[in-house]
């Protein structure tokens, strides 16, 4: 979940492994969320064409999948950047300057939250409490946690992840 996978280029399709996973879960009640987790783990989001395939395999209407995907914060319909930045906006991080970090990040990236930079390198999002409040304010990039983040340090941290 944390490490951004590199999905294959072109039209997204369920892989044989994903199909096997769906077959294994098909008869279990309440399987949809578990299946969507697995799909997102692979692609980094829920691609539209894959959602069609899942609907067919689970024999449920596409609208039901759309309903679930849009209800939960965790599921994404858009492809995130190659490097996924999550800024914690739990209470402790908010009190200790989470907002300033977001403002600074938006300045550096040149795009707002939940938008991929034109070069496809980064996308940033505000997330709910990550549960390491002792390190507030906290930021996560591709699963790597940065604690007690200072706005001045952001340029340097991002440079580590930039390609090249």
């Amino acid at each position, binding site marked *: *979940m*944390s490490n951004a996978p590199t999905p294959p280029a072109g039209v997204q399709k369920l892989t044989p492994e994903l199909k096997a996973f769906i077959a294994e879960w098909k008869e279990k*009640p*309440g*399987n*949809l*969320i*578990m299946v*969507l*987790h697995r799909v997102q783990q692979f692609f980094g989001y829920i691609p539209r064409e894959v959602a069609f395939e899942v609907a067919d395999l689970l024999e449920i209407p596409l609208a039901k999948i759309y*309903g*679930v995907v849009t*209800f*939960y*914060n*965790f*599921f994404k319909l858009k492809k995130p950047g190659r490097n996924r930045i999550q800024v914690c*906006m*739990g*209470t*402790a991080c*908010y*009190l*200790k300057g989470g907002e300033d970090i977001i403002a600074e990040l938006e300045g550096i990236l040149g795009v707002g939250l939940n938008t991929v930079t034109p070069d496809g390198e980064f996308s940033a999002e505000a*997330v*709910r*409490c*990550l*549960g*390491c*409040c*002792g*390190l*507030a304010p906290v930021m996560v990039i591709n699963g*790597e*946690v940065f*604690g007690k983040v200072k706005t001045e340090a952001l340029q340097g941290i991002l440079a580590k992840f930039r390609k090249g």
Partner: protein
Amino acid sequence: MGYKQYILVCGGTACESNQGIALFNALKSAVISNGLVNDVQVVRTGCLGFCEKGPIVKILPQDTFYVEVKPEDAETIVKEHIVKGRVVSRLLYDKKQSQINVGIEGIDFYQKQFRIVLRNCGVIDPDKIDEYIARDGYKALEKVLFTMKPQEVVDEVSKSGLRGRGGAGFPTGKKWSFAAAQPAGQKYMVCNADEGDPGAYMDRSTLEGDPHSVLEAMTIAGYAIGADKGFIYIRAEYPLAIQRLETAIAQSREYGLLGKDILGSGFSFEIEIRLGAGAFVCGEETALLASIEGKRGMPKPRPPFPAVKGLWGCPTVINNVETLANIPVILTKGGLWFSKIGTATSKGTKVFALTGKINNSGLIEVPMGTTLREIIFDIGGGIRNGKAFKAAQTGGPSGGMIPPQFLDTPIDYENLGKIGSIMGSGGLIVMDEDDCIPNIAKFYLDFTVDESCGKCAPCRIGGRKLLDYLKKICNGDGTNADIENMQEISEAMARASLCGLGQTASNPVKSSLRYFMDEYKEHIDEKKCRAGKCKNLLRYTIDAAKCVGCTACARVCPANAIAGERKQPHVIDKTKCIKCGQCFEVCKFHAVNRA
């Protein structure tokens, strides 16, 4: 177990993400390179609680407690402490101490704490079932399966006085008895590990540090109510906790402590993990069940209660992680023992995630009835940078802000309710004089509005209206009529909302209006934010008498709003000023005023 010494390394999330894994590996290789593999064992434990000073290393049997340890310190610890028996004083919490036996008793953070739920956290390796068993693990399960009838188990839990630690505080024994009274058939036992409250991580730490205690408790509960299937509903955002649970489930299956015919008793119980997907409303029982069923997590009106008609229409008990972690201890030591801890109405202990503007952030467990003053000043070490305490928030977005006059109130469910807050799941956020109360109320409402499922109107519309008013006030456009409207809406939301989310969403507003009306009034009447948080209300000016004309402010101003000749007093152009505050911070002569 022929080891002479043990090096315990905290494996909680905060420490691990602070180079804790590198530290663990460095200690292991230092032990190998010094030829001590047969004498010293390096163990990665669960959270030791003192997250502020992480990563933490503890050495047994001397009980020496090292803080803020870096991977490069590993070699020194092994060479000095282990080999030569000399304490590395620069890594101690209290650097002045020099004897080797400086354990946690010497640290104020651990005094006044009493550990039931966290009894094994930071003591055992959570990935090894044998270590849990060595600490009386699964003893309660054995006792229950072979010497007690299901009804006796329910009675024992009722006798303990244990109440739900998820927030509302419903008596656990009573909940179990409702489900136990339903006719035999398919029943379910669910563990709520969807810790959505921002600023709280008690359940995460418990699961990461002692996953077996929750598995054992679920199995006991299953036996008591007649369920053969359990689900753990856990946030997908907690990958480490999920991984440790998976390991724990596999191990207990292998040991015959989970699965078919447990220990040959004839009782069978299975546990499956189901992932949440980031919806705060799923902390509400009926919404959580909808989510396990694979649907949108929308709550349903109650009754029928889940204990009667829950998951897929079957009787279901839902208990929070912390509630469950108490169960094995209650059954080994007895309900009576447990009922002697705490206050008249609230028994046992409570785990809090102590965060915010406090010196010692961390995970603590105290007996019910401890006062906020003891928690914040004795355990937490007081407010950061010597600032003044303003308020504490318990219960996250569902709780209220507690002002200084209640610092000496003993904490229990009833007392917190009386002063306008709730126990909640255990987040305890400390705010100081630099925090703006209306701004924090806005933060919480922003959260609940975003998380409202939209099913019922009081929550969907009321929350939005409250947020609009708070934004208006923080922008300096508020009126006194807004306050009256907010009070009315808060009351309506509390009474008419369908579920706990909407019923409690107005608590931050209600409590802050009750105790911090002067701050709201200042925002409205004087257009002033004393904490300097509401940017629209700030005015920056330069005191001509103090300004020496060093040009530092003019150079740093991103809006070119500051003008003035070198060595002459400068002036801020209010029409250009974007109130970023950089001039205020850069001025060495305190000539920039913020009002």
